[in-house]
């Protein structure tokens, strides 16, 4: 090797003739991945959107069947929470009976409540000693609002049947929202539970419970 070729003083370091010192310093990568990199840029927008939508959809499915897997945490994204939040805010803003501006504060209120609440819950679990990052926690909390959005849709369906058995309809709505609330809380604790120290799990779950409780309350009382 070239080690024994070195002179004692390093003023004249010579390299053995056999060792090539010139050449391409680029690591030879397989051509396919280079093509892939290029193709992600060149691919049609439809493909990009479909890929992202599929990822979001997969995460929603994970929320519907909450199992203790890491996918929601590993590839976090905030598209799902945004979609859910906007849907919730649009549905909750209500078609105000008399004034066209009745719904304006409600959209902002729901939006701010959801995001501010999620941020507070995230900070709380972070301060209690949680091991997941800020955006991962936001991602999980946002995705787990999905059952509540579904229940909101069902509430609107029952509200369409106006005048017939209002008490029964109210009970149906109440049960629907309660189930969704329980589902959301359970799903988020499944995903976030392992990141907390075991003797503080309840402390981390309580704010999540409160957060979904406020959203559920907004859904139940949305009778317009």
């Amino acid at each position, binding site marked *: 090797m070239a080690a024994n070729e070195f002179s004692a003083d390093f003023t004249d370091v010579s390299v053995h003739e056999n060792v090539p010192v010139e050449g391409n310093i680029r690591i030879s990568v397989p051509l396919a991945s280079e093509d892939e990199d290029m193709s992600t840029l060149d691919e049609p927008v439809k493909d990009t959107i479909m890929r992202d939508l599929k990822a979001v959809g997969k995460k929603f499915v994970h929320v519907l069947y909450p199992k203790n897997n890491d996918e929601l945490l590993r590839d976090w994204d905030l598209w799902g929470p945004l979609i859910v939040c906007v849907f919730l805010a649009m549905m909750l803003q209500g*078609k*105000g*009976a*008399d*004034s066209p*501006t*009745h719904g*304006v*504060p*409600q959209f*902002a*209120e*729901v939006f701010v*409540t959801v995001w501010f609440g999620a941020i*507070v819950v995230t*900070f*709380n679990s*972070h*301060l*209690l*000693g949680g091991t997941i990052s800020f955006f991962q926690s936001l991602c999980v909390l946002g995705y787990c609002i999905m059952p509540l959005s579904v229940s909101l849709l069902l509430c609107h369906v029952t*509200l*369409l049947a*106006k005048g017939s058995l*209002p*008490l029964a*309809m*109210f009970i149906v709505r109440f049960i629907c929202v309660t189930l969704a609330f329980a589902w959301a809380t359970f799903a988020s604790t499944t995903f976030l539970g392992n990141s907390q120290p075991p*003797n*503080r*799990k*309840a*402390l981390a779950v*309580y*704010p999540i419970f*409160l957060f979904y*409780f*406020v959203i559920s*309350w*907004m859904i*139940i*009382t949305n*009778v*317009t």
Partner: protein
Amino acid sequence: MPVLHQSHDRHHARQASHRARDCCGLLVAWYSPIGHIWLPVRRRSGALMADPRGHPNGDWTSFRDPTAQSHQFGSSSIVDMENMDDTSGSSFEDIAEAPGGTTGLGEVGGDEGRTGKPGQDDVVEEDEEFLGIKGLKGQLGKQVAGQVWEAGRQQAARAFSLYANIDLLRPYFDVETVQVRKRLLESFVPRKNMKVPQKLPRELYGPLMLVFTMVAILLQGMKTSGTIVSQGTLMGTAIGTCFGYWLGVSSLLYFLAYICNSKITMVQILSMLGYGMFGPCLVLFITYNIHLHSLFYVLWLVGGGLPTLRMVCALSSRTTGQRQRLVLCCTLASLHLLFLLYLHFAYHRVIEELLVTLEEQPAFIPRQQRELVPPEVATSPASLRIATMSLIRSSPPIL
């Protein structure tokens, strides 16, 4: 023409011609590549650009080269503030008087500029000093600016890491579930021992969660009272009320404790007051759903009075002097009990009245449809049924 006048005129004319020549020289020096021919004359007699050790071989560098100028000072820094004595470097007269400013005089080849009248020399010196100082000021300015920037950046980074770091709050959230439960239950148990300062927890998790719980309960109470208003106002008002009470009364108590020389910190007051809100939370939760006046008064005394008593005892144990104790305890007790009364009776009524007032000023909020429930109905035993019906009732959606 008098001879004196003539000589005076000639003197002025010579001065003017010298000045003109010097200006041309300056201009040429600035803008021509061979301008350095002029410069040795200027710089040597000038001031700080000259090398104290001299350049025997006449190795003059261009005036426009700032790095060369810095080398002229040898091993010392560009701006050797020790040589400046007490000068701040702001006025060039001071700099000119500094030792570095006059070493250039009398050097080889520098005498050309020295011939002539003193006035001429002054003019020449002024211009040379001006040149030198301008260059030095540029360097000085740059270095100072660089130092100020670096110091400012470091300070900003330190301040940011100190204040914007969420981990600063971590010690106040270092609590176990068992501890929180214990503290919640103990908030109803006043400790009478006032001789020894009672231990107060420095914890913010419990109080923060209790304040948020109170916000949720207030929202729920407003809905069941049958007041259907714009939800934005409700949510903002609820949060504002609860957090305003917690932070505002804590600040007031801390101020009074400071005046009364109490041994208590702000975090301890926040913690104590936060846990003291557990009782009112329970009371409100029950009485917003069961509207009975007598029940409320009993709960007010028990659920509001016991935590207040506990807080009062804790504060008294940490204060010396009867008058100080009286001031602190009366303030705390009155504020805490009145707050509970206020929340129960006046909250939704205040909101309604506030909205009525706001509605009369159409510029501020848009018109909203409101259904006002008369207060007598809200507090009557039948109000529960009415409240439930208001939830069930639904208006036809506008398509």
